[in-house]
C-alpha cells in the first residue's frame, strides 16, 4: 500500500537533497491596528528539509496561520523573506497542496471530481488531463481508498460526514503530488475520535507522497503524533521559543500515544506554551 504515486518529484528533488526546501529568513509581520502598525510576528528564521513534516503550535493570534499563507505565496512575507529552493516566494507556488479547517469541497462536484480538481489546473497535468483521464482517475481512487472513501466516489459533499469531507479535502491537497503540503488546523472542527483516526490516515497519505508537510494546530498531541519537528511560538509579537525533533519511529500508531516518550514530548511542549 505504501508506494509513491510516481517518482518524478522525488527524482527531481534528489539532486538537491541536502538543500532545504524552505528557508525562513527573519520573517516578520505587521498589521494595522487603531491607526498604528502592530507587530504580529517579531522574527522567525528556520529552514525545512526535503520530506520533513513540521508543526507550528502556539497561542491563538500569534500568527501561525499567517506563516502558512506566507509560505503558500497567497500573502508573501512582508518583512524578511521565505525562500523556496533559494527563490524568494512572491506569488502562489504551484506545487503546494492546501487544506483548511473548512474542507471547502465544491458542492457541484462528487468526491472523485473534487479530488481531481488540482489536476485540471496544475501543469503538466492540465495539459494531459484529457488524454490521461483514466490514469488520473485511478490515482484519485487510489488516494481515496487510502482514506477509506473508495465507496463514496460518486457522492456529493452534502452526502458526506464532516470527517469524510476532510479526508477528501486531504486527497485533493495531495493528488498533484505537491512538494509542500500546507495544513491549517485541518481537524479542528472534528470530534476527538474522528480526529485521531484522521491522524493515521494523514500519516499514511503523507508517507506515500513524502513531501514537506507544514501543520498549524492547537492540538499538541496532534503535533507530536504527526511531526518530525515541532516549533513552539510565543504570544505576539511572536518568535520561535522552542523547537523539538520528535524521534518516534514511523508509521506512528495510536498506541504510541500512551508511551512515556510520547508523553514526554507532549509535556515539554506544553510547558513551553504555558510559561509564556
Amino acid at each position: 500500500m505504501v508506494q509513491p504515486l510516481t517518482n518524478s518529484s522525488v527524482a527531481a528533488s534528489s539532486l538537491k537533497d541536502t538543500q532545504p526546501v524552505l528557508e525562513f529568513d527573519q520573517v516578520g509581520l505587521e498589521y494595522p491596528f487603531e491607526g498604528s502598525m502592530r507587530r504580529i510576528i517579531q522574527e522567525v528564521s528556520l529552514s525545512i528539509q526535503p520530506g520533513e513534516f513540521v508543526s507550528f503550535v502556539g497561542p491563538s493570534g500569534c500568527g501561525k496561520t499567517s506563516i502558512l499563507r506566507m509560505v503558500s505565496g497567497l500573502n508573501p512575507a512582508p518583512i524578511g523573506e521565505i525562500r523556496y529552493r533559494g527563490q524568494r516566494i512572491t506569488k502562489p507556488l504551484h506545487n503546494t497542496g492546501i487544506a483548511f479547517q473548512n474542507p471547502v469541497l465544491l458542492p457541484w462536484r462528487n468526491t472523485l471530481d473534487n479530488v481531481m480538481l488540482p489536476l485540471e489546473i496544475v501543469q503538466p497535468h492540465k495539459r494531459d488531463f484529457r488524454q490521461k483521464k483514466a490514469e488520473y482517475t485511478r490515482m484519485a481512487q487510489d488516494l481515496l481508498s487510502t482514506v477509506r472513501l473508495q465507496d463514496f466516489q460518486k457522492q456529493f459533499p452534502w452526502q458526506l460526514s464532516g470527517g469524510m469531507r476532510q479526508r477528501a479535502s486531504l486527497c485533493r491537497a495531495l493528488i498533484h503530488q505537491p512538494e509542500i503540503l500546507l495544513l491549517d488546523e485541518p481537524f479542528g472542527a472534528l470530534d476527538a475520535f474522528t480526529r485521531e483516526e484522521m491522524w493515521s490516515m494523514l500519516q499514511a497519505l503523507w508517507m506515500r507522497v513524502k513531501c514537506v508537510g507544514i501543520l498549524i494546530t492547537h492540538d499538541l498531541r496532534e503535533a507530536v503524533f504527526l511531526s518530525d519537528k515541532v516549533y513552539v511560538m510565543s504570544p505576539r509579537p511572536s518568535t520561535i521559543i522552542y523547537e523539538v525533533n520528535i524521534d518516534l519511529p514511523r508509521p506512528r500508531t495510536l498506541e504510541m500515544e500512551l508511551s512515556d516518550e510520547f508523553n514526554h514530548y507532549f509535556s515539554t511542549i506544553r510547558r513551553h506554551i504555558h510559561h509564556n
Partner: protein
Amino acid sequence: MEKFLKSKSASFVLPFVATIVLFAVWELAVIIFKIPQFNLPSPSSILQALIEFTPQLIANSMRTLWTTMLGFGLAVAVGVVLGFLIGYSRLAYLTLYPLLVAFNTIPKAAIVPLLAIWFGANAIPATITAFLLAFFPIAVNVALGLDTVEPEMKDVLRSLGASQVETFQKIGFPHTLPYIFASLKIAVSFAFIGAVISESVASNAGLGYLIVQATADFNVPLAFAGLIVLAIMGVILYGFFVLIEKKIIYWAR
C-alpha cells in the same frame, strides 16, 4: 393524516381541492346573494366566457407570452452581464449599483406612458416594461453569487496557480448558478407583470389590453376569464423555471 401531509401527492391534491372549494363557495354566494353579473360574475359564467371567447383569449395570451419572454430574455442577457460586472469590478459596483437601486425604485407603471409616446401603442412598450422589471433581480443575484464564494475556496484555487479565468470557470460560475436560477423564477414573474401592466395602459393586443377592453364593454365575465388565464400562465412560467432549476442544480442543498 400525518402520513398524507408528508406524501408527494398532497402537494398537488390540497391546492386543487382548495381551488374547487373556493369556486364552489363563490358560485353559491353569487346565487344566494343575487350578485349582478357586472359586479361579480359567477364561476360558471366565467367558464362560459372562457369557452365563448377562446380564440381571442388564445391570440391575446400568445401576444402577452412572447412580449414577456422577449423582455425576459433581454433581462437575462443584460442582468447576467451587469451582475458579473458589479460582482467582479469594485469600480462598476461603486458607480452602477446606486443608480440601479434608484432606478429600481421607480414604479414601472409610471414609465409606460412615456414608452407609448416614444414607440406607440404596440408590443414594444410591453417588451421594454417586462425587461425593466426583470433585469434588476437577476443582476443583484448574480453579483451576490459572485460575492459569496468562500474565500478559502478561492485560496485553494489560487495556491494551485489558477488564473482569474480558471477561478471563474471552476468556482465563480458554478457557485453563482443557484443564485441565477433563484432569480430567474422571480424575474420571469416580474417580466410577466411588467408586460401586462404595459398592455393595460398602452397596447393594441395582449391579455392586459383584453381585460381593459372587456371592462369598458361591461363584459365582466370576459375580464375575469382573462384574469384566470393570467393566473394559469403565471403559474406555468414560474413552475417551468422551478423545474429547470431542479434539473440543472440538483447538487445544491
